[in-house]
C-alpha cells in the first residue's frame, strides 16, 4: 500500500478537482468538503512517505504505466522532496480551511471553480516536487501557472492587469525551461533525470549542455522572481484575493527554488555546477542584489501586502545565495529556509487575510489600534514578525543562522552583510507596524467609534480563521526548536557527498 | 524532404511571423497568425511529423484564430505601434 503513495498524493487532489468542477454545476455545497478531504488524504500520504523515507533511508520510486526508467515517467521521492511535499500539502490544507468564510463572501457562485483551481494548483506543485522526468515537470509547471493566473486574476480591480503581466513573464520562464530541456534532449537523447545524470558527466565540455544549463536557470529565475526579472511578483501577489494570495505566495517561489536545487544536484551534477562551470560566485552576487533590492523597496511600501511581496523577493535571494555558496552549511541553510520561509509567509498572509476581512483595507493604517481590538491575531503577528526578523526561539533565526555560517565558511562576507542588512530592515518594517498597531488609538478616523473610549469591544476574526492561524504561528516555534533534528535527520541526507 | 521546398516554407514562416508582429491592425494580425500556423503545419508535414501537423492545423490555425478574432471583437482593432 505504501509504495502507491507517490501516485495517490497527486491523483487524489486531481480527481477531487475534476469532481468538484463537475459537481459545482449541480449543487455547490459539496465542493468545499470534498476539497478539504482530498487535501487531508494528500497531506496524510505525504507525512507517511516522509516517515518511511527517513526511517528506511531509501528514496521511494514509482513507475507510471508500469514502464521503467527512461522509457516511461518515474517519480522519485527522496528526503528533501518528501519534506517539501509535506510543507506544500500542509500549507494548502491550512489555508483552504482558514479561508472558508472569505471564499463564501467574495466568490459567490464561483466558489466551486475556485476550490477546483485551488486543488489543481496544489496537485501541480506536488507533481513538480515529486517528478523524475524533465518534460513532465514542464507540463506540471504549466498547470500550476495557469491555475495561478486564474486565481490571481479574480481579485481587486487591478488584478487582471497584474495577472496578465504575470502570464507574460511566466510564459517566458516556462518556455525557456522547455528550450533547456530540448537542449538536454538533443545532446543526451533522454528526458529521465536519473538517466540524464549518468550521461551528462560524459559531455562536460559540450556547449549544448552549457546552454541547457543557462536556459534552465534563466527559466527558473524568471519563475522565482530573482532580481532582474521580478517585475511580476509585487503586483500579482498584492492584487490577488486573500485566499489565493495565502496559497500562491508561500508556495510558488519556494517550490521553484526546490526545483533549482534538484536540477543542479541531481541532473547537472555538483561537479558540473561548481567545479566545471564555477557559476557559484556570480549567482551569489545576483542573490545579494536580490536581497538588497527586496529589502530596500519593502521600506518604501505603504500597503502591507505589497511590503510582504518585496520581503518574499528578498527571501528568494537568501535561498539562492545560500545554495550557490557551495558548502554544506549554506545548502542546508537554504533547504531549511524553504520550509521555514513557507510557514512564515503563510502566517503573514493569513494576518493580511484577517485584517482585510475585519478592516476591509490592507493599507498600513488599517492596523491602527489592533492590539486592543484583536489581541490574539496581533500575538500571532508578533511571532511571525520575530521569525522573519530572525529572533532565536522562532524558526526564522535557525535557517538564517545556517546561512550566515555557510557565508562565513565560504568566505563570502558580502553575503553575510546582505543577510544582516536584510534582517535589520525587516526589524524596521515590522516595528513600524507594531508602533501603528499598538500606540495609535483605534478608530480615530473610523466614523462611529469614539476614540479611546475605555475597553473597545474585542472584534476578533471569526473562529475558523483564527484557530488555524494561531496553530501556524505556534508551529513557527515548534519548527524553531526542532530545526536541529530536521537538519540532521532529513537535510544532511539530501546534500550529495561531494560537498564539504 | 526536398530541401528547396523546406527553405521556401521556412522563409514564408519567418515572413508571416514578422508581418504578424508589425502590422498595425489587430484583426489582420490574427489572420497573419493563422497564416503563420498554416505555414508551420506545412513544415511539420514536410518534415514527417504528421500528428503534429494535424494538431497544428486544427488548433493553431483554426481555434486560435477564432479566439483572437473573438477577443478583438470585444476590444479594439486599433494599435499604436
Amino acid at each position, binding site marked *: 500500500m505504501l509504495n502507491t503513495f507517490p501516485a495517490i498524493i497527486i*491523483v487524489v487532489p486531481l480527481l477531487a478537482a*475534476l469532481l468538484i468542477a*463537475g459537481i459545482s454545476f449541480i449543487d455547490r455545497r459539496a465542493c468545499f468538503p470534498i476539497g478539504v478531504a482530498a487535501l487531508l488524504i494528500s497531506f496524510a500520504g505525504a507525512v507517511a512517505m516522509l516517515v518511511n523515507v527517513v526511517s528506511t533511508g531509501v528514496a521511494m520510486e514509482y513507475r507510471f504505466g508500469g514502464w521503467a526508467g527512461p522509457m*516511461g515517467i518515474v517519480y522519485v521521492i527522496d528526503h528533501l522532496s518528501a519534506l517539501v511535499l509535506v510543507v506544500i500539502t500542509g500549507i494548502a490544507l491550512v489555508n483552504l480551511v482558514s479561508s472558508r468564510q472569505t471564499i463564501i463572501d467574495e466568490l459567490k457562485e464561483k466558489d466551486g471553480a475556485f476550490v477546483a483551481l485551488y486543488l489543481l494548483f496544489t496537485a501541480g506543485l506536488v507533481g513538480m516536487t515529486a517528478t523524475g522526468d524533465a518534460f513532465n515537470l514542464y507540463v506540471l509547471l504549466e498547470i500550476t501557472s495557469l491555475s495561478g493566473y486564474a486565481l490571481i486574476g479574480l481579485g481587486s480591480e487591478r488584478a487582471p492587469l497584474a495577472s496578465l503581466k504575470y502570464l507574460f513573464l511566466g510564459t517566458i520562464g516556462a518556455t525557456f525551461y522547455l528550450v533547456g530541456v530540448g537542449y538536454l534532449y538533443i545532446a543526451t537523447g533522454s528526458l529521465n533525470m536519473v538517466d540524464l545524470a549518468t550521461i551528462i558527466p560524459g559531455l562536460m565540455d559540450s556547449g549544448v549542455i552549457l546552454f541547457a544549463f543557462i536556459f534552465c536557470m534563466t527559466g527558473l529565475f524568471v519563475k522565482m522572481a530573482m532580481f532582474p526579472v521580478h517585475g511580476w511578483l509585487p503586483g500579482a501577489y498584492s492584487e490577488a484575493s486573500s485566499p489565493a494570495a495565502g496559497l500562491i505566495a508561500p508556495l510558488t517561489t519556494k517550490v521553484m527554488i526546490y526545483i533549482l536545487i534538484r536540477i543542479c544536484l541531481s541532473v547537472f551534477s555538483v561537479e558540473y555546477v561548481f567545479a566545471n562551470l564555477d557559476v557559484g560566485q556570480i549567482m551569489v552576487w545576483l542573490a545579494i542584489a536580490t536581497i538588497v533590492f527586496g529589502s530596500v523597496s519593502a521600506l518604501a511600501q505603504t500597503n502591507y501586502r505589497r511590503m510582504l511581496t518585496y520581503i518574499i523577493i528578498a527571501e528568494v535571494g537568501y535561498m539562492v545565495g545560500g545554495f550557490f555558496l557551495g558548502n554544506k552549511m549554506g545548502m542546508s541553510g537554504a533547504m531549511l529556509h524553504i520550509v521555514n520561509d513557507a510557514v512564515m509567509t503563510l502566517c503573514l498572509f493569513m494576518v493580511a487575510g484577517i485584517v482585510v476581512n475585519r478592516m476591509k483595507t490592507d493599507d498600513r493604517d488599517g492596523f491602527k489600534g489592533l492590539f486592543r481590538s484583536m489581541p490574539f491575531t496581533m500575538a500571532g503577528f508578533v511571532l511571525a514578525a520575530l521569525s522573519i526578523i530572525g529572533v532565536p526561539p522562532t524558526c526564522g533565526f535557525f535557517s538564517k543562522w545556517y546561512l550566515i555560517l555557510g557565508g562565513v565558511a565560504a568566505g563570502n562576507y558580502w553575503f553575510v552583510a546582505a543577510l544582516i542588512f536584510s534582517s535589520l530592515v525587516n526589524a524596521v518594517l515590522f516595528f513600524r507596524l507594531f508602533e501603528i498597531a499598538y500606540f495609535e488609538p483605534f478608530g480615530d478616523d473610523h466614523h462611529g467609534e469614539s476614540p479611546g473610549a475605555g475597553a473597545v469591544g474585542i472584534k476578533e476574526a471569526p473562529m475558523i480563521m483564527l484557530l488555524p492561524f494561531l496553530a501556524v504561528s505556534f508551529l513557527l516555534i515548534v519548527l524553531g526548536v526542532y530545526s536541529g533534528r530536521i537538519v540532521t535527520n532529513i537535510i544532511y541526507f539530501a546534500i550529495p557527498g561531494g560537498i564539504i | 524532404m526536398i530541401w528547396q521546398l523546406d527553405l521556401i516554407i521556412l522563409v514564408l514562416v519567418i515572413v508571416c511571423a514578422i508581418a504578424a508582429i508589425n502590422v498595425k491592425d489587430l484583426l489582420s494580425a490574427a489572420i497573419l497568425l493563422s497564416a503563420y500556423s498554416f505555414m508551420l503545419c506545412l513544415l511539420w508535414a514536410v518534415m514527417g511529423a504528421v*500528428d503534429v*501537423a494535424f494538431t497544428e492545423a486544427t488548433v493553431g490555425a483554426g481555434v486560435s484564430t477564432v479566439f483572437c478574432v473573438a477577443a478583438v471583437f470585444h476590444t479594439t482593432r486599433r494599435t499604436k505601434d
Partner: protein
Amino acid sequence: MKILGRVTVILCGLLLLVYVGEFPDFADPQSPASTHVSPYYIQNALEDTAVPNLVTAILADYRGYDTMFEATVIFTAGLACFFLMRLPKKEERVVFYRHRATGVTLRIDDCGAVPKDTQAFHRIDSQWVPRDLIIRSTTRLLIPFVQIYALYVLAHGHHSPGGGFQAGVVLGASIILLAISQDLRSAISKIKEKTLGILSSLGVLIYAGTGFLCLLLGESFLDYGALASLLGTDRVMARSHGILIVEVGVAMAVMSVLIWIYYNLSSAGKQDEGL
C-alpha cells in the same frame, strides 16, 4: 524601452546562432536523440501495445501520465476562462426585440421579464446581422460531416495520424462553426454551459479514472495491462483498448473545453450575444 528590447534580442539571437554549430547536424540518424531512447519505442511499440501509430502509442501508453496532465492543462484553461470571465446571470441591462410582422425593433432598457415564446417578437443581438441564407445552408450541410470526420479521426487514432486531441478540436470547431454561422444564442440552446462544464470534467475523469482503476486492480497507475481481467483479453490487447478509452475521454474533454472557452470569450462572460 524599445531600444533596450532590440539590443537584448539581437544579443541573445547572436549568442544562440553561434552555438548552432554545436548541434548534431540536421537529419543524421546517429544523433543522440535518435539513438538513445527512441529505438526502443520504434521496435517495441507494436509488440507492447499493438498500436502501429508510434505517436499514439507513446502519447497514451509509455508517457500516458504526461498526456493525462496535458488534458488537465486544457481543462484548467477552460475552468480559468469560466472563472475569470463569467458574469453573474442576472445582469440584463439592454435587450433588443424585433416585431416579426412589421420589422419594428424595440430597445428595452433593464426590462423585467419579457414573455420568451411569443410568436410576435423575436430577440436579436445588439450587432444583429440579417441571416445570410448561403452561410446558414452550407454550414447546416457541413457540420454533420465535420463531426463524422472527427469521429473517424478518433476511431483511427491507432492506425493513422490523429487521436483524442485532434478529434476533440475538430468536434469543438464544428460547434463553434455553428455558433459563428448562426448566432451564439442558438448554439447555447443546443449545448448549454452546464453540459459543457460537466462534460469537460467528465472527459478528464475518464482518463484519470481509468488510471485509478488500474491502481485499484493492483498494478501501477495508468498501467492498462491491469484491465486485461476486466476486458477479457490478453495484456497487449488490453493496452490497446485502454489507449482507445483514454482517447475517447480526451476527445470529450477537449471538445467541451474549446466550446466553453469560445462561449466565454465571444460573449465576454454574458453568454447572450456573441461574435
